[in-house]
């Protein structure tokens, strides 16, 4: 896990960097280590709920929690793409419902095999993203207006696709297995070993290459500590999952998308341009970047991930109905990355924030359900947490600006 890596400053003469505890504290408070802050918040939330109800941290409830956050997490990954370019997509909830409905209808009513049905669902999402992105760039309409119109349109399309019955039940195991497959202990441990080895190899291998080339890198102890922490988290997580139903396929799908998109945004030219467009679109244009092309791709990725999330949600609920993709899904998918440090103003954030933020939101809602709180209380607490997170983001941003002007 990269904790605030892009922001770590290093001295001109390369090599290892000295970090004073005070410096660390300052970075922690000012949002450069937003991920760490969120991880501590998650720990706090878990402790509080566990004190209220000891079943919260049970293996079976934590497994449920992971399953509950997959749909929001997957959609939030896509939302990060548009947040990075400083835009927003309000249609992701509706798109997730429509894509799932398309998949369900062609599978159940027209007898398509699972794979082409799922593919058509994702293609539906991609096509919607292409349309919305093109409308946004071609006519210079603010993205929230384009996607707000989209929200209504795709909700209507959902009703149309579902037809008179309004509900399509999924029975094909090729689709329902996505969210209902659990792997046994052996597979879990093999996965853990591969994941830890791969992470250590990438982190420390990159560190060695950078040292050899004489360019800046993070201090070795910090990197080793990071590998150890990640290894512990993976081992503990697999142990917990194994003591219940096992390692869920849905969680693997979520992690695969997180890692893939993390690599796309931080290691490729496209990712660099995504951040550049969000930071300063005019500068990007002058640097020869096809700004509109980047924007359209961001919207396509966003809607495609909304479709993927919708399909996973349908697989878990074994059905698509008129309220699929409705209720809190949109709000949670946008709030998740913002809670975990992705800026609403563009140019700052990470794909990890989608996963971390979804965990925060998922934990709160799971814990409150476990405590059987009133809906009124749940809404207000969720709203309060979201507001608090955005305030922290805004404060971090203004501190950064004040510092930048020195």
């Amino acid at each position, binding site marked *: 896990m990269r904790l605030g890596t*892009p*922001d*770590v*400053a*290093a*001295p*001109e003469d*390369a090599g290892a960097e000295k970090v004073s505890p005070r410096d660390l504290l300052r970075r922690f408070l000012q949002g450069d280590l937003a991920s760490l802050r969120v991880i501590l918040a998650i720990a706090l939330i878990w402790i509080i709920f566990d004190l209220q109800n000891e079943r919260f941290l049970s293996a079976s409830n934590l497994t449920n929690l992971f399953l509950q956050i997959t749909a929001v997490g997957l959609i939030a990954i896509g939302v990060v793409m548009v947040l990075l370019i400083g835009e927003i997509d309000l249609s992701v909830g509706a798109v997730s419902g429509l894509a799932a409905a398309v998949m369900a209808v062609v599978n159940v009513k027209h007898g398509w095999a699972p794979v082409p049905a799922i593919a058509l669902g994702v293609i539906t999402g991609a096509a919607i993203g292409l349309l919305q992105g093109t409308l946004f760039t071609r006519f210079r309409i603010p993205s929230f207006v384009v996607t707000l119109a989209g929200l209504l349109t795709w909700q209507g399309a959902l009703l149309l696709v579902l037809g008179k019955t309004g509900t399509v039940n999924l029975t094909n195991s090729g689709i329902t297995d996505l969210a209902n497959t659990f792997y046994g202990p052996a597979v879990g441990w093999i996965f853990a070993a591969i994941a830890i080895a791969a992470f250590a190899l990438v982190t420390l291998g990159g560190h060695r*290459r*950078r040292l050899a*080339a*004489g*360019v*800046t890198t993070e201090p070795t102890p910090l990197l080793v500590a990071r590998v150890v922490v990640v290894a512990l988290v993976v081992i503990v997580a697999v142990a917990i999952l194994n003591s219940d139903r096992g390692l869920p396929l849905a969680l693997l799908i979520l992690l695969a998308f997180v890692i893939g998109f993390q690599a796309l945004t931080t*290691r*490729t*030219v*496209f990712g*660099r341009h995504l*951040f*550049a467009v*969000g*930071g*300063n679109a*005019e*500068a*990007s244009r*002058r*640097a*020869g*970047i096809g700004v509109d092309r980047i924007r359209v791709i961001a919207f396509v990725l966003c809607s495609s991930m909304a479709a993927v999330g919708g399909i996973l949600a349908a697989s878990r609920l074994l059905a698509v109905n008129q309220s699929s993709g409705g209720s809190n899904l949109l709000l949670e998918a946008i709030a998740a990355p913002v809670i975990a440090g992705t800026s609403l103003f563009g*140019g*700052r954030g990470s794909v990890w924030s989608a996963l971390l933020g979804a965990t925060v939101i998922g934990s709160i809602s799971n814990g409150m359900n476990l405590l059987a709180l009133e809906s009124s209380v749940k809404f207000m607490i969720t709203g309060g947490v979201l507001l608090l997170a955005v305030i922290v983001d805004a404060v971090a941003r203004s501190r*950064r*600006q004040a*510092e*930048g002007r*020195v």
Partner: protein
Amino acid sequence: MSESILSARGLSKRFGPVQALDGVDLEVRAGEVLALVGDNGAGKSTLVKSISGIYSVDSGEFLFDGQPVRIGGPASATELGIATVYQDLALCDNLDVVANLFLGQEEIMSGPASTVRVLDEIRMEQRSHELLQQLSVTIPSVRSEVGTLSGGQRQQVAVARSLLGEPKVVMLDEPTAALGVVQTKQVLDLIRRLRERNLGVIVISHNLANVFEVADRIFVLRLGRKAGVFEASKVSEAQVVGAITGADTAEQEQP
């Protein structure tokens, strides 16, 4: 005397009723700093934008390295080797120095990774170090976010970026505007180092003290016309001010 890299002859540009440039001849030589001065509305920006290809001139011709050339747009100016650093710098504050230096011309890994265009961060960072060291640019780290740098440092990063394309002529638009004393000195030092690299440097400035400190020749524009070219070492500030305001009507031409 070194040879001329870029010369423009009889440049004219009209915006509706306004004759922004009227038959301007300009020449910049390798290894010299040519200051471009003039009052507001004298046509400085129009002249720079004509050379950098943003405006197409109504008439006039360009010679680059002695060859007649056509500047059809910003891309063709860049291709010829004319780089421009605008006043707003066009930097991404949220990206680090390396990312800004290579923005739009990123180095990518060779081999199978090239199909997905994976960034070659090590190569870019090494080249950034080399470039900044050659220019003696002082920044905390090449991995500092540009938004955290001072105005002078940002200016230096913007100038360094323009050099990545190996240009022969660099145009700087008000490089010292809004900078403090120390930062101004850093930027002026950088301009001297560009001269040492045998580049032709065109600097637009309102600040005559800075102009006299760094320029070899001073080109005065007035109402879209050339009001004189002076050797900086052989002219007084009063004479230049006279040419800028038109108080001194006797036009001078010095080699």
